[in-house]
């Protein structure tokens, strides 16, 4: 439940929520293309999540992990209805997610203001756009697998039951054909946030706009060709394993390109270390650690050694917490003034950042080592092996620090909403269109949208003597 909840009910709603709010503002539109469909998507998520959590009172929570491998997820091994609620809930949420992704992509295609060509699109919107296509093609494998599981469980069919000639491996194939693109679904919008925030606080345009957008497209395509690296331990055969090892290493290249773009943007800039920028900078560091440990899995023997250990847990928390959640915190500190009209307290923000940063690293960095010396994941206890106890203790202390940091954050939200400094339209002197709207924006977003002749319309507006489009011909 922790995995399913975090992925489907925390990370995705946070990212898609931001995308939903910001996309129309950033492209100068009044609203999303299909507002009612948008509401439908939200309510499907809402009721889907209720259905998932109903399992607790409806006979017991699903207990087969977030990937619910067959045959453990089949009736003989999971007899309670928990897994049926799990599958139905995810099916609902999946359809809702697809509808929202389509909605956002139609908005981006059809609702851009005059002058907002694809080459001038804010990078956050670019990422949302690519993300939409990944969702479009990655969610159906999950939905197909879920309905097959439900048919198996409810109608006694045989898709994943080896006894009757079915194939448990097919579940894994279908699930990871969704599951790996899903990883990119969960990080692309965060990359987009970072790509908006770092330039503003470095007081420089993004370095290599085309490369950031282009490498995102490359990742979108490659993300469908790497999934079987989750299955190296299954025994698919060498040719199969090698092919996926190769693609998994290849996808690190466009990811690395982005890291260099962000660093090069900061290089030589007049950096303002606001809380948002601190989170963005920490994102680069932590995401790089998570990315590098990710590449180690592409080396098949290493994967065999560390699969199902805490090393894997450490890896994906560096990607999803150190990456995505740090990106989301950066985004919250950056866009909260726009959403609410008030600034978040920088003083509390500073506390929040350092507590999160220290707590996170205390909790998860040591898990690399715990995993390397062999502690398996998904087992609630561990034997008294030398070194295991104190390492787990460090992890636990870190988790408490992390918990306190969340309290600081919630207090900051609460107090700043009531007493925060009024933000004004553009507190960060940013350049994208959402900062031309009032804070918070009116229901129709804009009275007047400034002319868009480059990638930084508000810069052009503020500096009529040296607008971007005069200096940079590639933005034409």
């Amino acid at each position, binding site marked *: 439940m922790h995995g399913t909840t975090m992925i489907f009910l925390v990370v995705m709603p946070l990212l898609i929520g931001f995308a939903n709010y910001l996309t129309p503002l950033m492209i100068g539109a009044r609203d999303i*293309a*299909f507002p009612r469909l948008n509401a439908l998507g939200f309510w499907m998520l809402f009721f889907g999540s209720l259905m998932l959590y109903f399992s607790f009172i409806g006979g017991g929570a699903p207990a087969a992990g977030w990937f619910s491998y067959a045959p453990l997820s089949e009736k003989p091994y999971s007899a309670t209805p928990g897994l049926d609620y799990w599958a139905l809930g995810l099916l609902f949420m999946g359809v809702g997610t*697809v509808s929202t992704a*389509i*909605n956002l*992509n*139609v908005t981006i*295609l*059809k*609702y851009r203001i005059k002058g907002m060509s694809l080459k001038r699109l804010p990078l956050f919107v670019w990422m949302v756009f690519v993300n939409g296509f990944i969702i*479009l*093609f990655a*969610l*159906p*494998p999950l*939905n*197909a*697998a879920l*309905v*097959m599981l439900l*048919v*198996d469980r409810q*109608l*006694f*069919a*045989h*898709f994943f039951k080896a006894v*009757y*000639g*079915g*194939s448990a491996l*097919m579940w894994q194939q*279908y699930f990871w054909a969704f599951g790996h693109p899903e990883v990119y679904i969960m990080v692309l919008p965060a990359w987009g946030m970072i790509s908006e925030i770092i330039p503003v606080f470095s007081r420089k345009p993004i370095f290599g706009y085309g490369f950031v957008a282009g490498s995102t497209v490359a990742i979108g395509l490659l993300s469908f060709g790497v999934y079987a690296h989750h299955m190296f331990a299954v025994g698919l055969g060498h040719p199969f394993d090698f092919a996926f090892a190769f693609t998994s290493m290849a996808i690190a290249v466009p990811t690395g390109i982005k890291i260099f773009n962000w660093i090069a943007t900061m290089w030589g800039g007049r950096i303002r270390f606001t809380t948002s920028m601190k989170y963005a900078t920490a994102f680069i560091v932590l995401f790089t650690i998570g990315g590098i440990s990710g590449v180690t899995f592409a080396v098949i023997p290493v994967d065999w050694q560390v699969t199902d250990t805490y090393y894997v847990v450490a890896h994906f928390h560096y990607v999803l917490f150190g990456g995505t959640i740090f990106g989301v915190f950066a985004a919250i500190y950056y866009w909260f003034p726009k959403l609410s009209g008030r600034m978040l307290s920088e003083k509390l923000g500073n506390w929040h950042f350092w507590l999160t940063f220290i707590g996170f690293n205390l909790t998860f960095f040591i898990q690399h080592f715990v995993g390397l010396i062999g502690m398996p994941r998904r087992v609630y206890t561990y034997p008294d092996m030398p070194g295991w106890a104190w390492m787990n203790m460090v992890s636990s202390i870190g988790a408490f620090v992390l918990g306190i940091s969340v309290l600081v954050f919630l207090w900051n939200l609460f107090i700043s909403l009531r007493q925060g400094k009024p933000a004004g339209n553009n507190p960060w002197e940013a350049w994208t269109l959402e900062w031309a709207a009032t804070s918070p924006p009116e229901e129709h977003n804009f009275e007047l949208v400034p002319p868009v002749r480059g990638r930084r319309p508000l810069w052009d507006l503020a500096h009529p003597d040296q607008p971007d489009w005069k200096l940079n011909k590639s933005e034409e």
Partner: protein
Amino acid sequence: MHKDKVLMFMVVATEAVFFTLLILAYLYFHATSGEGAKQTALLDPLRTFYFSMFLFTSSFTVWRAEKNVDKKNFGRSRFWLLVTILFGITFLVGQGIEWTGLIRHGETVSTNLFGTTFFTLTGFHGMHVFVGLIVLSILLGISMLGDFQQPRTANSVGVVAIYWHFVDIVWVFIFSLVYLQVLS
């Protein structure tokens, strides 16, 4: 292209992946999983072909309905919509006959892998036909109430037609792979 059509093409794209995976599951078990997955002798390709012709033809009729809205011949458009709905229903009746025949033979979704994959695949296709029929009926209803005359709603038949063609194309694949067994 109108935004409604862009929307529908994206819906069709995501649905296409879904059906591809169900078809792949059928083909995979058919090829690898022993006798239980190969019970295609129970099917009646000829009868299903006749019923399939109704579905294939309905792609033409829905196209006529769309064109007649463009030409503002709303009466004719309603006629073609009605024909489309009737053809769709006829196809579903054919599916019903097929299913009851199989079930009388003792072939159900839980009998063997053929049943499992066949009923899941054709069931989901039939459900999509059924949803299409509901939407087409709604179109017919609001057309009789005098809609489609403003540009804002004029697209509707064309948008639903994209979906209907898609359901049709999926059946082309299912019919040729499951009934005609072109790959085996």
